[in-house]
């Protein structure tokens, strides 16, 4: 079914010239979008000597896999992987779970001045995190949560973006279904779990992924609220190397290797989930 819809949306006539043009433009777009990644990999495999050469080579003279070992040793990356994974997963679960409940409440449960409360929540999307840095640090300090997983999990969990997305999605659901479930005597918990959630699975996958990305990639907050290497996450590990560039040195080969440590797991995760995401949507969340 997915392909039939796709065929309708696109230009249906099978003109070989059009097909060639489509492939060519896609290829060009991918090369443009992929170039930085290519350069990241190439740079990470060069020797410092080759790196200093000019003009730069498009492919390393010899592939220096040892760079990855050097980069790995430059920060406690093993521990940082564990930390990133644990705090990323926990914060995502919390964030998505709370957002689901809240979005459902806003979409389907009566409450005085509901729209006002919704706007109050959505307005927080416009607050830059940098503004909350100091007050939240003070709060965590009072809770004695500095340098704990709590600090990396709980404060980022209250996020308006997933609430917004879920709310948008819930509003698109056919209200007849909800009414029917209500008529059957289902409570809100059951409706959310049995009716709304199954129909919103693709959006759930997407939001989960975006939330996880946000946690995985966050730099400033983990740097500020963790004091010890045992509590730190991967992006902070990259800072161990970036530091040297500020001093004037340029270990770009190591920096790119460390950057790949951060990027590769997320790319793998993404490749797996992406299929499910698109498939899920075609299976008919929006169509019902």
């Amino acid at each position, binding site marked *: 079914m997915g392909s039939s819809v796709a065929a309708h949306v696109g230009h249906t006539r099978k003109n070989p010239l059009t097909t060639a043009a489509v492939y060519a433009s896609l290829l060009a777009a991918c090369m443009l979008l992929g170039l930085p990644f290519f350069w990241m990999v190439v740079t990470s495999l060069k020797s410092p000597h080759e790196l200093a050469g000019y003009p730069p080579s498009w492919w390393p003279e010899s592939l220096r896999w040892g760079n990855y070992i050097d980069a790995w040793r430059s920060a406690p990356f093993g521990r940082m992987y564990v930390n990133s994974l644990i705090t990323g997963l926990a914060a995502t679960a919390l964030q998505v779970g709370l957002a689901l409940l809240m979005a459902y409440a806003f979409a389907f449960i009566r409450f005085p001045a509901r729209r006002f409360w919704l706007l109050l929540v959505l307005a927080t999307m416009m607050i830059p995190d940098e503004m909350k840095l100091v007050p939240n640090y003070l709060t965590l300090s009072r809770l004695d949560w500095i340098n704990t997983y709590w600090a990396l999990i709980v404060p980022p969990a209250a996020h308006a973006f997933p609430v917004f997305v879920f709310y948008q999605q819930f509003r698109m659901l056919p209200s007849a279904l909800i009414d029917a479930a209500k008529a059957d005597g289902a409570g809100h918990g059951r409706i959310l*779990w049995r009716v709304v959630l199954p129909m919103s699975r693709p959006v759930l996958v997407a939001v989960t992924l975006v939330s996880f990305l946000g946690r995985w990639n966050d730099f400033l907050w983990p740097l500020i609220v963790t004091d010890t290497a045992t509590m730190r996450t991967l992006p902070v590990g990259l800072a161990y190397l970036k530091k040297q560039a500020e001093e004037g040195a340029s270990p770009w080969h190591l920096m790119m290797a460390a950057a790949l440590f951060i990027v590769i797991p997320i790319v793998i995760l993404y490749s797996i989930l992406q299929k499910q995401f698109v498939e899920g949507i075609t299976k008919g969340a929006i169509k019902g």
Partner: protein
Amino acid sequence: MINRICAFGQDVALGFCFSFLVAFGGCGGPQSSLPSGSGITYWRTLSGAAGDAQDTLVARFNEQHPDTKVTSEFQGSYSDLATKLLTAAAARRGPQVTQLGTFEIRQFAKSGVLVDLKPLMNGPNGLDTSGWSGTLIAAGEIDGGVYWLPFNVAVPVLYYNQDAFTDAGLSGPPETWADFFSYARKLTRRGDKDAVQMSGLALWNITWPLLSMFWSEGGELTNRDYTNITLNDPVAVRLLTELQSLVREGAATLPDKASGGHRAAFLSGRAAMILDSQDAFSEVFTQATGFTPALANYPAGAKGKVYAPGGGGLAILANTTPKQRETAWAFIRHMISPESIAYYARESGYVAFTEESRRAAGDLLQDPRHATIHEALPFLRADYSVNMSPAVRNAFDEAFQKILVQNADVQATLDAADTRAEAAVKEELTAH
């Protein structure tokens, strides 16, 4: 009806589940361990060898003092570290000892976040700073107290391309700044279409090297207590005009801040000279491609040689208990003991800035290159620096960029920067 009650019950149960999740945050992690007794935490910057060597020194201290423990934690770059110290100070927490760049000493000391080390220096376990080079101790002197002691001291070093010098008929490094400017022009090589193949000079995109240049030519940008700001000092105007014309002619290039590109330009033979610090040493001598690199001190000016030191030092934070203070002082004395400084100089390339540490470093100074680097020490002048006030630093940095990037009028730009800095400093002084 029963159905509806059940449904409500479900809602409650679901709500509880999520409340539970909130209360317990998904999963627990190891809690931060509290420093027990006189144990202290040390926050540091610098990664790579300069970071590892610090951790080794900390481990040595812990071996020698089994009754206490110093925990060393890397906190990112100097500016990351300062941001962390700021937030921690606002919450009245943080480490007991910290590494600190010269940039922030003044603000931190004036706000009462740092401990005055003078009583400790004059106390029973005191510190004799008579064998220290230059006026290094002065960097930490604020309002009659000492709030910071140098640890990782950087000195200016000029690196040059020996082969390019020979080709240009130059027998040795420039002795004076006037030579330096004329050499930069002589060393510039052009290909067809006038494209520059090698520029005489690649500038480091920070203002630190300029301080040495200005000071040795007799220029002053501020006085000691920031009551007299003179960013438009005639010497500064003259030297920046000189640099500006070098850039305009293509004899000097200004790589961007993010990449440390001046070293890359030098290492690949696209720039014949760089004004850097001892920090570039190992990179220069292991990675230079296709030419022989050499080093020298920065040139001399009308006032002879006057150099701005770089790097960082150590400070004790005010939230330290008396017991911890003892450990903290013992730790600082350990870190700047002759053996430690000598070890650090060997491992990290920062300089051995005390007489005793130079003796302890022994064979290191047998290498004529290291000997040259250390020759800069007596000429260090740390009694004040534009880096110590954010307002002055900002104003001067921006003027520097405007002049070299946008080719702005030197006198007018520095005048404007001076006015701005003066107003901002007044503001800063009233904030305390």
